[in-house]
Every structure is written in structure tokens, then in C-alpha cells.
């Protein structure tokens, strides 16, 4: 075991894959000379050269579209959008090109791209740099969508994402980059589509991912002191979704909530809640609860921003309501 920050773990995973496979190239704004604003590719330019570590102009639509062409030609581009909010200026190559190309060509092509993007509120970045847009991506058939929380998961899943032949949206929470955690020594992979029970429990299932995992674990401790034993399931991967793990947990506890940082309306929680009530209705002791961000724009002012997205106390309160305690 060694201790690494989440950003260093991502860097290590990316580095290992670039060493292993010369077709892996990274491109995005400020990736080469600067080594990315979150220092993910620091030192890569010297090691891999400018053809594999590409500083693009501020042309998200252009370079994201380029990545599609590169992938169709056999490369494995790892694209970084500086913020997931910037998807608005390059949605076409993601949604209409990368996601659909394989299907539309009747399976002729593979588009193995990893779209990395920081997500999340809490950094006082206001309305255009704070969103969690998982739900927007999961709505698009053809994309895989993952959002690991821990350093170990981030590294192992990034390696799997790069090796996947499908386009994968890989979402990293800005406020987790600096988190130091233990990761296994040596090379290891974590498959996409496998949830991880970060805290077993019997009274209540909390389905969550990314930074809300930590908030959920904190809430679970509070609940434990009140005699409520919550199981915290880190979904990690939203497409594919680990339904078997969700099912087993819901059948064990009978009470379930989805905790997410994205907006409540049309969120992942809505989707999972619908799936659970359709498939596991008879296992439910209460309606599936959602804890999510308000349906508002991320405000700038700190007290306003804190009121906008879920915190541990919100999760605890939701658990009380759910369990009628």
C-alpha cells in the first residue's frame, strides 16, 4: 500500500496506460506544457512528446471531434475537458458522433475515447464551473459513465476506461483531487460496472458516488450512533450500472435512498428510483428517497452554495424521514 492523492492516482493510472500502449494519447487545454490545471499530466510532455500529449486551442468542439476521428483510426485518445460544464460547447461530437458511431455504422467502428472531466460544487466556482452532469451523460445511449470517488478506484477504473473500446465519460470531483488515500501497490484494474459496498449495513441502503460517498459515509456514522445501520454502496459506475449489487442491498434493507450532487429533477436518483420501484417493489418498506442538489443554478456566495447541494446532515434527515424515526 502506498498513499496517494486522488489526482496523483489518476496521473499514475494514465501514465501506466501510456507506457503500456503507444496508441494512448492525451489532448485538451493546458495538458502539455502546464501539465493540466489539476496537475494530472505533469511531466508527460517530456516523457511522451508533443504528439501524445497535446495542448489544444480553446476549441472544445474541434478537439473533441478530432478525438472521434483519432479513435476511429485506432488511437485511444484521453480527452480532458477542464470542467464538465464545458460539455455545452462540444456536445455534438460526444452525443451525436462518439456515442452513436458504432451503432450507426452497424458495428463497423470502435470509438475508444475517455472523456475526463472534473465535476462538482463546493469550490465557489459559480454557475458555469460547478455542475454535476452525470444524468445528462447517462441519458445518451452509447456512452459509458463512471464517477469514482477514492484514489484506488480512480486509478483502477481509469485504466479500465482507457482499455474499453467504448467512449467513457470519466467524471472526477474537483474537491477530491487533494484527498490522500491508500492505493494497492503494483498494477491493478477495477472493472467498469461494478459497485463497491463501502460500508455494510442492514437498515438502509444509500446509493451514491463521487464526493457524496464521503458525505454518505459521514452520515452513516451519525446514523449508527442513533441505532440506524446504513449500508453505503458506492456505485462508481452509472453506465453500466451494477444492478445485482443494488438489488441485493435493497432486498437486504428494504429502505433505499439515492444521494447525488446533481440536480434532483431528472437526476440519476430519479432513474434508479424508478428502476427499483419497477423491479423491486415488493422489497420496499418505504418509497425510494432522493437526496440531491436543488433545481437551481450553482450560486457563488458560499452560504448559498452550501445550501444548494446535499451535506451529511441532509442525508441524516432524509434517513430519519425514510425510516419514520
Amino acid at each position: 500500500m502506498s498513499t496517494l492523492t486522488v489526482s496523483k492516482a489518476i496521473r499514475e493510472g494514465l501514465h501506466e496506460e501510456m507506457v503500456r500502449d503507444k496508441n494512448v494519447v492525451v489532448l485538451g487545454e493546458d495538458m502539455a506544457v502546464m501539465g493540466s490545471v489539476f496537475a494530472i499530466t505533469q511531466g508527460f510532455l517530456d516523457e511522451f512528446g508533443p504528439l501524445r500529449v497535446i495542448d489544444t486551442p480553446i476549441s472544445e468542439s474541434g478537439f473533441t471531434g478530432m478525438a472521434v476521428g483519432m479513435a476511429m483510426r485506432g488511437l485511444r485518445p484521453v480527452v480532458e475537458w477542464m470542467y464538465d460544464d464545458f460539455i455545452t460547447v462540444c456536445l455534438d461530437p460526444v452525443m451525436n458522433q462518439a456515442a452513436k458511431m458504432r451503432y450507426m455504422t452497424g458495428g463497423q467502428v470502435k470509438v475508444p475515447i475517455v472523456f475526463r472531466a472534473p465535476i462538482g460544487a463546493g469550490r465557489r466556482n459559480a454557475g458555469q464551473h460547478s455542475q454535476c452532469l452525470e444524468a445528462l451523460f447517462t441519458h445518451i445511449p452509447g456512452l459509458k459513465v463512471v464517477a469514482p470517488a477514492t484514489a484506488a478506484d480512480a486509478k483502477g477504473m481509469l485504466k479500465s476506461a482507457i482499455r474499453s473500446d467504448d467512449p467513457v465519460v470519466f467524471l472526477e470531483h474537483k474537491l477530491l483531487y487533494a484527498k490522500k488515500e491508500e492505493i494497492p501497490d503494483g498494477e491493478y484494474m477495477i472493472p467498469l460496472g461494478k459497485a463497491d459496498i463501502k460500508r455494510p449495513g442492514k437498515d438502509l441502503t444509500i446509493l451514491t458516488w463521487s464526493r457524496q460517498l464521503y458525505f454518505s459515509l459521514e452520515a452513516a456514522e451519525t446514523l449508527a450512533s442513533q441505532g440506524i445501520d446504513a449500508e453505503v454502496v458506492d456505485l462508481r459506475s452509472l453506465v453500466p450500472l451494477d444492478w445485482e449489487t443494488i438489488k441485493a442491498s435493497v432486498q437486504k434493507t428494504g429502505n433505499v435512498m439515492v444521494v447525488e450532487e446533481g440536480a434532483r429533477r431528472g437526476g440519476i436518483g430519479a432513474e434508479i428510483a424508478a428502476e427499483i420501484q419497477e423491479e423491486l417493489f415488493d422489497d420496499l418498506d418505504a418509497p425510494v428517497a432522493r437526496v440531491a442538489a436543488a433545481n437551481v443554478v450553482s450560486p457563488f456566495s458560499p452560504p448559498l452554495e452550501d445550501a444548494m447541494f446535499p451535506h451529511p446532515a441532509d442525508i441524516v434527515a432524509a434517513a430519519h424521514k425514510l425510516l419514520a424515526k
Partner: protein
Amino acid sequence: MATEIKMPQLGLTMEEGTVERWLKAEGDSVKAGEPILEITTDKLTNEVEAEADGVLLKIVAHEGEDVPVKGLLGYIGQPGEQVGASAPAAAPAAAPAAPAAQEAPAPAQEAAPAAKDGRKIRISPLARKIAKQMGVDYATVTGTGPSGRIIKRDILAAAESAPKAPASAPAQKAAAPAAAGTAFPVKNLELMEGDTVEKLTGMRKVVAQRMYTSSVEIPPVTQTVKVDVTALLAFRRQLKESGHAISVNDLVLKAVSKALRKHPEMLVSLDGEQVIRRAHVNLGMAVALDTGLIVPVIRDADLLSLEALSAKAKDLAERARSNQLGADEYKGSTFTVSNLGMFGVESFTPIINQPDAAILGVNCTEDELVMEADGTISKHQVMRISLTYDHRLVDGAVAAKFEMTVRDLLESPMDILL
């Protein structure tokens, strides 16, 4: 292909019925439309008719068994036809002694989850599933979830506290927790020579449950007032002579209807933390039957003329005795009148017919000597009326004023008609 005989649904709130008596034996030939068995439900005894020609191949639910609506009672088919083991939905029929057998899917059992008072039961899907697995009748469980929803813990608690009958007890069958609708303690009473045991079923079970619930839930007060009915009886004779067969009970019903309009505070129901103020004077009218008691309802009794009211009361009573009431004719009362006068009862404490807040007991008429204003003594007829009310909702003075209005009306019978 054999035809299944199923428990019919005879009223909106009917959940189950009891097999009273098979009119045919296995092997008997039957014709479509021919009565083949009798069932009793909450309130009624009905005949079930054969749906097809053939022979009664098999009786699945035997006499005394409770069967949910749409549950299997038996089969009609051609002689020699095989039914039973391979037949679908075999016997969700009560067999309450074997809750394990209830794991077999019995969708019909879930079709009408309604409490005995007709309200929809709120229960979580998981709680319902567990209740089924454990054989807990959730209709009698109180929910502790949001809005009173029954959740898993409530079912577990109910199962925990359910009486456990010793295996050897003769009354074991009746003691099983799945006996829908009742939760009377099992005392394992010692049987003495000549005693017989029969199952609490049908109307008796419903009466037992309703009387028990009312008496446990309601803090009752009974106030008795004496009414001078001399003028009333004279008035009745007058009516009779002019060809109108009006009973004392009819006049009482009319007077009560009128008094209730004047005292709407008597027309209330309690639902949790809510008091429901009733808009209609729907008079329940207790009718004694050989097998129990039923309370048909005269809707909007205050809007009926004395004659119409009398006709309605007569019609309901007759149809109640001949078991012909529609399911909706014994529901929705807002006040009830119970008359034991014909049996010579001088006074009694009636039990409130929930969800009403009060019930008026009517007693016999007696002769009494009364000193008139001029000092002479004369014979009068008097009758006591006994009002029981729910003291959670109605206080003594309010009830007394209502009773005085009833008395005044009965003592000045012309006012009843005005």
C-alpha cells in the same frame, strides 16, 4: 377443462367469505345457475350458483373455512376429470393452521386490501410481503410509518405479539394468526361434557369485532330521559284510523332526524386527529336477525316525509331479515337508533355503531300515574330513551340538549310533522 368455483365479491369492501354449507356433494351433477353452496360474508348469507353444467368434481374449501374473494372453492367438470394438484391457484383458502402454505402465490388475497371499516389500508410492499409470509393479518395492524403506513417493523411486532396456541389445543385452528379480522385473546378454555365448538364466522364475527372495537375505543356515556308519549300514542292511533300504519319507531326516527338537524354537533365522526362533521342525516336502524345484528341505513332521513320514512324503514327491515340487502345499504350511517321496546326493555346502554358518535336506545312504553296541573291524577304513557355518546366528541350538556329536543318533539307529535 374443469370450471373453478370461486368466492364471489358481494360488496365493495368484502375481503373474504365463509363457506356456510355445501348444497351439493362431490360427484353430484349440477346445472348452470343452480345453487351449489351457501357462503356468509360480513353481513349476508348468499348462495353461490354453478357457472357450468357438469358434476361437482371436488370441494376445495370445506364448511366453516374462510376464503378470500376470488379464492378457490371447488371445481365443476365432467365425470372422471382430474383436478387439484395441477390446478392453478390451489387453495389460498384459509387453512390458517399452515401459514407456510401461504407462500404459494395467491394474488386474489391482495386484490382488496381494505380495512373492515372500508378505508384503504396503507402498507408498504415489503410489509405486505412479510405479512403474507408470516401469516399476519395486516388489516388489524396499526401502522407507525408516515401517514400511518404499516411498515415492516409493524408486521414484525404484530407477529411477535400474536398469541401462540399450544399444539394440542382443540381450538388451535381458530387461534392461528391468519384468522382475518379478529384478534380476540385465545384462552384455551376447558371444554366440559356436552360442549361443542364452532368457528366464529360471518356475521357473528363481524358483530363481535365491531362491538369489541367500539367498546375498547370509545369512552361512552349513557343518559336516559323519560318521555311522556301519551299524545304520541294518541296521534299514532289517529293516523291508523285514517289509514296510515305508522309505528312508534317511525315517529321516533322522524323526531330523531329532526333533532339531529337542529343539533349537528351530534353528527360527527373521529378519524385520528380529525373530526369529521357529517353533512347528512343517515340513520342507522338496528335490526335483529336470528344470526346476529345488522344496521341498514336510511339515507337523508331528515328529507323524507313521515310516510316515506316509514316505508323505507319497513322495506329495509324486511329485506334485512330476508338477507336481501345490497352491500351499500348497511354503510354510511351518521347516527343510529336501536329499539328494544318491543321486548319490554326498560332501559339499556347501547354500544355506539362506529363511526357514529352516538346511538339512541328506544325502550318500552309503560303506564304511569301523573299528577296534572289541576291536582288530578291521570294515567299517562311514558317511554325512556337512552342515548349513548362518544365523550371524546360530545359532552354531557350537548347530549342532554339533543335528548331534550327529541323528547319535546315526541311529546308534541304535531311538531314532528312541521
